[in-house]
Each structure stands twice: as structure tokens, then as C-alpha cells.
């Protein structure tokens, strides 16, 4: 056991839901078009631009602008650092999510264990044969 609560392993930048979905949408891809990511994350162009700029400044995402024919296209890709931060954040989230599955089970176990151990007062009233 590490002894450290998984919340300490969360990446502050990725605690924002849009930024987390954005890096998730790019993970496992070489690159994706801006409009595709916007539709996948379900945000407006301006909101996505704002979050992309934040992630780009942090070195998590790279932006490449190009043209296909006369149509401008913006491509987004995740950097190695961004992918690593995303995976660590996701692992921490999974550990946190697993806590309330584990917690009731441990509470039940603790309760059943304490119910099997007689209290000091009860022990004094036990029949001699049991002592």
C-alpha cells in the first residue's frame, strides 16, 4: 500500500471535465481534426479553443494548422507528456471510483469482526467453562 490517497495523484489541469475529455479523445490517435474533437467532447468552438490553448501552453497538446485544397484544417494531437499525465490521472480516478465499492465491504467486515469479539463487560459475564 502506498499510503497516499489517490486524489494526490490527480493532475490539476485534467480535473476540468472538458480538458479531460479532450485528452481522452486524442489519446491513441496520431492526430484528429479540431471539428471532430469538438463534436466528440460536445463543446463550442470557442470553449474548445480556450481549453486547447491551456493544454498547449502546458505541453499536453500540439496544434498544427494546414490546408486541404482551399479549406483550412486544424489538427490536434496529444504529446508524450500529455498522454502520460492523462494515464496517471485516469488511474487515480479509477482508484478513487473503486473506493466506495471497497469501503462498504470493509465496513461490513469490520462490523462482523467486532460482533464476534465480546466486549470487556460481556467477557466478565461469560460462564466459567468459557473462560
Amino acid at each position, binding site marked *: 500500500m502506498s499510503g497516499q490517497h489517490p*486524489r*494526490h495523484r490527480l493532475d490539476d489541469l485534467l480535473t476540468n*471535465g472538458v480538458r*479531460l475529455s479532450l*485528452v*481522452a479523445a486524442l489519446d491513441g490517435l496520431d492526430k484528429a*481534426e479540431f471539428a471532430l474533437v469538438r463534436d466528440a467532447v460536445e463543446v463550442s468552438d470557442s470553449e474548445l479553443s480556450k481549453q486547447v490553448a491551456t493544454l498547449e501552453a502546458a505541453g499536453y497538446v500540439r496544434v498544427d494548422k494546414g490546408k486541404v485544397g482551399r479549406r483550412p484544417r486544424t489538427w490536434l494531437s496529444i504529446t508524450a507528456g500529455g498522454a502520460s499525465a492523462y494515464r496517471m490521472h485516469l488511474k487515480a480516478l479509477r482508484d*478513487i*471510483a473503486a473506493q466506495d465499492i471497497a469501503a462498504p465491504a470493509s465496513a461490513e467486515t469490520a462490523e462482523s469482526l467486532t460482533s464476534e469479539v465480546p466486549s470487556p463487560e460481556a467477557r466478565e459475564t461469560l460462564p466459567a467453562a468459557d473462560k
Partner: protein
Amino acid sequence: MNNEITPSDARSAIGAAESAAARTRRSARWVATYIGVFGAGFAAMTLLLGLTSLNTNIPAVLPTLWGGLIVVMLVFVHRQRAIASGLGRRVPFYFIASGLLYAVALVVGITRFKGEPAYWIPAAIIVGAPMIVGAWRESRA
């Protein structure tokens, strides 16, 4: 901020992230179609060369068919909005495998088995197989 995240918040965040990831990955599966069409193209060309006399009667037909297929697939690729990681390594492998088998099938078949379906039909299947298997793998990635 981090201190306030509950297990339920964590599950919602994971769900939203996985849903966004699934959408972009679906858009990156076009490569299965791309490889599958080329695999079918390799197999069809093998059959046309071995079982018809198109190549001797109208020599321009097969290069035109290949050229047309390549142009259509280039347009198809340029329309795509997501590229899966590692395609630059995997796709050439499928092309080289089918290309080499195609070359061997033609060299052996044209010299010894011209017009024999018993040779050309299995040869076409074998030639297309690396790309069809590649298409199947990419569709599951």
C-alpha cells in the same frame, strides 16, 4: 479542488472521457476500409491477370484500374478526420506483404498456369489475405 472529488464524481469523469475517446476512435477506423479495399483490389487484379486476356488484348485496362483505385483511395484518405497511432508502421507492412505475394503469384502463374482457375483462385485469396487480415485487425483496434 482535488480534495472534493468523490467516487461518484470520478466515475462520471471516467464515463465522459471514455465516451469522447470512443467517438474519435470510431472515426479513426476508416483504415480498415482502406486496407480491405486494397486487399480486394490485389485479389481482383490477380484474377483478371490470370484468368482473362485483358492484359494482352487491352493492355491499358489493368494499369487504369489500379490508377483509378489509387486515386479514389487517396481522396478517401484526405477526407478522414482522425488518424490512429502507429498507422505509418502497420499499413506499409500489409502493403509489402500483399505486394510481394502478388509479384510471386504473377511470376509463377503467368509462366506456368495461365488460365487455370485451380491456381489463380487460391492465389488471389492468398495475395489478398494479408490486407484482409490487416483490415480485420484495424477494425477491432
